[in-house]
């Protein structure tokens, strides 16, 4: 028993109590593990397919049916050589990096500012909140915006750390920010 306790890290002890599961529990465990494995498998396998297809021999791949578990035909990096020859692809990639970095930065700065302003108890607070929400509600990306906001907000609420500044700054819902905040706070 002593060795077992030693093996557990502190965080494990805090979250999981030490149990001695019975047969029913074992069965539940196995079913849950299998279901989770299935879910993870479904999430990853299409990407695996793409990876393998990218390494495959193009002509044979066209004739191939079903899922590519392994490279079809002789594995080669020809496809990659081909795209890196094409300058426009590299250029496009550089552009998307630029857009992403720019949008993330701008979104971060602006939503943090708005979030801070709205987190304070000021007389204009209702106006500021309304201003941002109406925009979020009417504009084209409103769905993901508010959703992200609720997600982060509730997450934070649920975590018991009611840092209104943090969750309100997602009012604009720059998805990236929500994502980051979610990732930082809730995972």
């Amino acid at each position, binding site marked *: 028993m002593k060795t077992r306790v030693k093996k557990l890290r502190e965080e494990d002890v*805090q979250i999981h*109590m030490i*149990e001695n599961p019975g047969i029913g*529990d074992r069965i*539940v*465990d196995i079913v*849950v*593990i299998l279901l*989770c*494995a299935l*879910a*993870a498998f479904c*999430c990853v396998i*299409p*990407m695996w*397919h*793409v990876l393998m297809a990218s390494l495959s021999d193009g002509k044979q791949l066209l004739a191939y*049916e*079903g*899922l590519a578990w392994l490279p079809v035909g002789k594995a080669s990096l020809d496809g990659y050589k081909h795209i890196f020859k094409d300058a426009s692809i590299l250029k496009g990639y550089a552009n998307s990096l630029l857009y992403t970095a720019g949008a993330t930065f701008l979104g971060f*700065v*602006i939503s943090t*500012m*708005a979030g*801070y*302003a709205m987190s*304070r*108890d*000021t*007389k*204009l607070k209702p106006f*500021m*909140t*309304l*201003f*941002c929400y109406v*925009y979020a*509600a*009417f504009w084209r*990306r*409103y*769905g993901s915006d*508010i*959703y992200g*906001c*609720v*997600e982060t*907000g*509730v*997450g934070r*609420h*649920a*975590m*018991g750390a*009611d840092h*209104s500044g943090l969750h309100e700054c997602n009012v*604009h819902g720059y998805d990236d920010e929500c994502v980051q905040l*979610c990732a930082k706070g*809730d*995972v």
Partner: protein
Amino acid sequence: MRAKKTAAVAAPKMTWKKDFKRNWPVYLIFLVPFVYIFVLHYIPMFGLAMAFQDYEINKGIFGSKWVGFQNFITLFTADEFPRALRNTVCISLLKMTIGFIMPVIFALLLSLLRNRKYKRAVQTMSYLPNFVAAVVVAALVTEFLAKDGPITMLLCRLFGAENQNWLANDQVPVFWVIYLIMGIWQGMGWGSIMYVAAIATVNGDLHEAAAIDGATRLQRLTKITIPCIMPTIIMMFVMNIGLSFASGFDNILLLYMPSTYNVADTIYTYTYRMAFTGSPNYGLSAASGLFQSVVGTVLLVGSNYMSRKLSDSSLF
């Protein structure tokens, strides 16, 4: 999101002058986002005037003829409209129910895992699809459901389904199910994050006490975990009602084709088609976009109200 409690503990009464004297730095900070949102998002809203005009590009908003509600009459009497409305409603309902419940179930499954390393691995893998661009996902779906695609083959071998291009199938639930599953695949792991967070906050003492009293894990799941995260679930669900009608139809643009318009065409895609393809009719497109926005906003405000009543927390 604000809980009612914080609203109740508002600052003591202050005159505008005092308030401004004290809070001017806050307002100064807000000025930047204010200008940004106003210029880039409020001013373009006047483009909605197009919905009431016979809009012509060379004349612009100020030169085009005003036609009142003519565009809306055309819209509601068009052949495509009832079809688009039906598809929008059905797809929204599917997203609202099945699409909503999957992340919850997934989070509950994760909470039952004992091995932390395994749990983390599963979680990480389930987040991956969220980072794949929608266009790429659509390309994957197209490939997997093509005539010799992996899923088609699987269905063919397992259930003896006809070997076909599933995306071209215009039977009623096929496209909806494809779209729903695509959405679930993309969002399940990511959507489960907040439920996982909510589950993590459930007091461990409750579990311990229940375990000592002899509750099995399944009992603890249904009697402790689920009731504890119920407020979160309700809140998310109510918000979903408002949002699912108004958003997330972008993927359809990537998946549908003229032969499946009768099951795949939604108000969103109809708006898009009217504005950007063939012979554009901007007035009609703006009218249809406005219609969706208004219905979406009504649902959103309504569901927000319900959320305030049910779970004591709301967006605004």
